């Protein structure tokens, strides 16, 4: 078998010793965003002087490490307990999804994108579907019920994703009981997803033109049950964590990033909001019917790990508020567009009509043709702005399908957040960025 070379060395991708670096590279790895004031530059230079190379150590963290959220690999240069430099090395989960996306038709594309950010699969499907709909020119014709259902699923997915963040954040900091609690609440949401979509994860439920199926009978009671159980439990977790001195000590003032730095690095989502920038695509560049809803954008102040935790915690509450409003306003009607081009005929018609059978067969084998063009659509996923850039050449397969993954960009902020901190805080920083490696490497 000569499938792999047995070496795990990645050469130039790794963190090299300082003597092998150019000044610019060094600045990058100490987390500078290259817009330094002179005092900052002087401070940096003095650190480099203070730590001669024989007194520092480059250690490797990951890719197989319990608190790097999968297969993230970090190389850290330490002086004692202090992190001097950090470089994330990614690609250990590179799946070639953008290449596979070119081989799958628009009809099949959802199965591909849903596996990128596996903690919020429905948001991935949503952004892909919206991009395809925009290319097809049917983005204005999506039935009301489909739009509201998409919002319902998207918000529930945000809740489950943030609950998982609470669980992993707790586990990484050492609050192991929170891990079990977070998972318990997430299971409640997943059971609802299983009832609606048939799967716990990777649903492929939101498709170009609408959704795969209507909501099952009794869905309202299930959602209400989730919403009624959650507040008292969130209250409990608030006491368990937010009010706890150890928790505050571990997170407050750790991994600080300012608004300017976050914007320069292109960071979005809870990390950008933690710096005090009130930016949420749901409110600022509304899609679906978010402009008709009432909700608050949770904003932090200090840009530290505690703010990021707190923002995600309160976003669960905001999502619950949104879901209540969606429940009140859910209209009846079609769950997918009645456009023969993109919608397969209903199952019952296939039994009686030959044309319907052929149509059904063709739409699933050949797919539907999409007019030439290129489009970029973005929405707010639990981790930040997820965007989909599709180039169509007029065939039934995308010519190029690119996903702008929020975690991929957010990871770049890590060297910046870690610099000068303790190595024990590195885990808190990774956890507070909440990366999903499937999305980073795609």
């Amino acid at each position, binding site marked *: 078998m000569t*499938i*792999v070379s*047995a070496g795990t060395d990645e050469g130039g991708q790794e963190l090299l010793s300082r003597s092998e670096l150019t000044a610019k590279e060094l600045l990058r790895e100490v987390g500078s965003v290259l817009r330094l004031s002179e005092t900052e530059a002087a401070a940096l230079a003095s650190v480099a002087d203070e730590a001669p190379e024989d007194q520092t150590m480059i250690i490797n963290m990951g890719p197989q490490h319990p608190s790097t959220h*999968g297969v993230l690999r970090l190389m850290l240069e330490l002086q004692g307990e202090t992190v001097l430099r950090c470089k994330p090395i990614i690609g250990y989960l590179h*799946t*070639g*999804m953008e290449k596979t996306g070119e081989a799958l038709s628009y009809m099949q594309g959802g199965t591909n994108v849903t596996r990128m950010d596996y903690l919020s699969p429905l948001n991935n499907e949503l952004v892909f579907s919206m991009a395809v709909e925009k290319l097809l020119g049917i983005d204005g014709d999506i039935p009301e019920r489909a739009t509201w259902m998409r919002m319902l699923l998207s918000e529930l997915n945000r809740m489950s994703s943030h609950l998982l963040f609470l669980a992993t954040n707790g586990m990484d900091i050492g609050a192991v009981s929170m891990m079990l609690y977070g998972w318990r609440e*997430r299971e409640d949401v997943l059971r609802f997803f299983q009832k609606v979509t048939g799967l716990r*994860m990777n649903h492929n439920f939101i498709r170009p033109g609408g959704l795969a199926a209507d909501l099952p009978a009794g869905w309202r009671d299930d959602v209400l049950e989730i919403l009624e159980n959650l507040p008292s439990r969130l209250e409990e977790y608030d006491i368990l964590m937010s009010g706890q001195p150890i928790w505050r000590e571990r997170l407050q003032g750790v991994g600080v990033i300012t608004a300017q730095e976050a914007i320069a690095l292109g960071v979005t989502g809870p990390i950008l909001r933690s710096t005090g920038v009130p930016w949420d695509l749901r409110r600022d560049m509304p899609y679906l019917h978010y402009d008709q809803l009432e909700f608050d954008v949770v904003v932090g102040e200090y840009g530290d790990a505690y703010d990021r935790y707190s923002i995600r915690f309160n976003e669960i509450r905001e999502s619950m508020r949104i879901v209540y409003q969606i429940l009140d306003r859910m209209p009846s009607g079609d769950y997918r567009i009645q456009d023969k081009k993109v919608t397969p005929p209903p199952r019952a018609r296939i039994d009686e009509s030959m044309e319907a059978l052929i149509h059904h067969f063709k739409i699933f084998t050949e797919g539907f043709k999409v007019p030439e063009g290129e489009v970029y659509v973005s929405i707010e996923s639990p981790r930040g702005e997820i965007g989909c850039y599709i180039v169509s050449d007029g065939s039934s397969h995308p010519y190029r399908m690119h996903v702008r993954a929020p975690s991929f960009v957010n990871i770049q902020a890590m060297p910046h957040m870690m610099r000068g901190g303790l190595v024990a805080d590195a885990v808190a920083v990774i956890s507070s960025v909440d990366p999903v490696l*499937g999305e980073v490497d795609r």
Partner: protein
Amino acid sequence: MGLVQNVLDDGLGGIEHNFVTARIEDLVKWARSRSSWGASFGLACCAIEMMGTGASHYDLSRFGMEVFRASPRQADIMIVAGRVSQKMAPVLRQVYDQMMEPKWVISMGVCASSGGMFNNYAIVQGVDQIVPVDVYAPGCPPTPETLIHAIETLHELIEDGEIMRRRASNNGGAGIQLTESAIAAAPVTLGTK
């Protein structure tokens, strides 16, 4: 006096409590199967389900499996949970080599078992090309119930000695020899489609 003296004095009648006899081999197999610790080798979506299986609702500790070890030295079962990329494959093999014998591998999910829907340049088409797999769990991702079934299946195989017999026939260990290949290790060929 001690148990030994009692037995020497009165034979079996000298033992105060009930006892069972068994072959030591069976006891070892039983103990191995009921206290196998997993190496947390989470890769992708399946890792989330694997962690979900360990959490309170599915409660993997019922099977003596709740201790997921981060260090391969302390682990017995490697659950390869997710797609294995070309970049990850050497790491995976290294972690496997670091585990102590006896060791077992569960390939969780279709991506690990066969590459799944990602039939492309980046993904190793089946982790059994790198490490010997004992049980394959199907699904994308497998539900916690499927994983529990896979673990139970493996426990049965450990208990009846099947895997160890198979290992013995090919001189133990992985039985898959990797040759160090020169630099360009790409399995795909360049060329115009």
